[in-house]
């Protein structure tokens, strides 16, 4: 195994483009090292992106935040302004693993590991987050929901990697929330995850809403119909139930030891309603 730790985006792209097809990008390593050590993967090349400045910074940009793909969960959790603007994204990050895992795990890694149950991905999709991808053809920006194509698979081409994620500027009275269901209180993989991002008018009417789900499909999914059920409403009980019905209709989960299909579908509606309630309280309290 060849290990490289380039100092620039361009060198990382050159290495990945010239390397074998099974080359892997190393950020926090909390998934990659497990796969390496278990013999699940034997890449000829590992490119560590943590020595590239752009992957390690949280910066204000156009009223929003640009977060390096390799910034650790602990660093994200300690960023007060980011947490205030995007509490749902930050709570999703902080749900990943233990204190030790938080010291290393990153949003870029959580996204590109492409687990259907990744906690940050539904929260990022609900937030309308955009990835900056570097590759042999230059840089491009893509919505987070376009990255994962199936369990462990992404739309990234050879030589490409995610440099950073952008969370846009917030209109007034906007807030997000993320909830996941696990059968215990810590250290588990989501049975269902739900991210909700809302904006309210001064009147309290919902003017924008995005709802995304995790662990109920081969990838985290945006449910446009669920957001549409909320927009234009005062987020009353019937509106929330229409949203939950759209959520349940969008689920096509697997049956496994963590939950049956029927159970996951029902719980997805419950989680989305509760996350919506938290986002609403946060938006109203501004």
């Amino acid at each position: 195994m060849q290990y490289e730790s380039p100092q620039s985006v361009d060198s990382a792209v050159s290495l990945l483009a010239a390397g074998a097809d099974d080359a892997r990008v190393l950020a926090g390593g909390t998934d990659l090292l497990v796969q390496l050590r278990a013999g699940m993967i034997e890449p000829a090349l590992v490119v560590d992106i943590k020595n590239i400045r752009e992957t390690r910074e949280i910066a204000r940009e156009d009223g929003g935040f640009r977060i390096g793909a390799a910034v650790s969960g602990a660093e994200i959790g300690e960023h007060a302004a980011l947490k205030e603007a995007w509490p749902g994204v930050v709570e999703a990050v902080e749900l990943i693993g233990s204190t030790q895992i938080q010291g290393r795990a990153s949003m870029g890694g959580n996204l590109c590991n492409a687990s259907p149950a990744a906690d940050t991905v539904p929260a990022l999709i609900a937030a309308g987050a955009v990835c900056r991808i570097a590759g042999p053809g230059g840089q491009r920006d893509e919505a987070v929901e376009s990255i994962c194509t199936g369990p462990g698979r992404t739309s990234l081409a050879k030589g490409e990697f995610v440099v950073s994620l952008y969370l846009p500027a917030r209109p007034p009275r906007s807030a997000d929330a993320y909830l996941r269901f696990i059968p215990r209180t810590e250290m588990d993989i989501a049975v269902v995850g739900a991210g909700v991002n809302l904006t309210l008018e001064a009147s309290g009417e919902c003017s924008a809403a995005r709802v995304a789900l995790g662990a109920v499909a081969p990838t985290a999914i945006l449910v446009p119909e669920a957001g549409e059920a909320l927009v234009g409403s005062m987020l009353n009980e019937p509106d929330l139930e229409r949203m939950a019905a759209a959520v349940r209709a969008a689920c096509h989960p697997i049956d496994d030891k963590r939950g049956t299909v029927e159970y996951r579908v029902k719980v997805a509606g419950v989680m989305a309603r509760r996350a919506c309630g938290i986002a609403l309280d946060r938006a109203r309290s501004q």
Partner: protein
Amino acid sequence: MPKSKFHVVTTVNGDSVEFLCEPQQTLLDVLRDELHLTGSKEGCGSGDCGACSVMLDGRLVCACLVLAVEANGHSVETIEGMAHGDDLHPLQRKFLEHSALQCGVCIPGFLVAAKALLEKHPDPTETEVRYWLAGNLCRCTGYDKIVRAVLDAAVEMRTG
């Protein structure tokens, strides 16, 4: 031509340390097998049990999930740096006083993790202690004595 061995310069418990490693060797492998710092244990090897907890640039991490080569230019603190000679850290004394250990394999990891907690939160609640240490597994004690020892050490460290 890719390098087969990497020359790594790092700081371990305040001492400048150099070693050669292969790219796939973990920091835990090097600490234990090359530097003979065997206090950090390999429990699961997958980041679930916390027995290999060390500090990397002041962050609590699992040494089994860090490549040794990644430590180049960075600072590592292990359980071996916790006591000063025979002078135990308050957490170590409190673990003994509370009998917060049985087989002991998990204890270096618990101590490193608990020290990181108290440096960040000198006055944690019991809930905060339990969540912070959720990534450290102990199959003997049932955790209660460990949590009490940490809370007691916190009191002593705050009040001197």
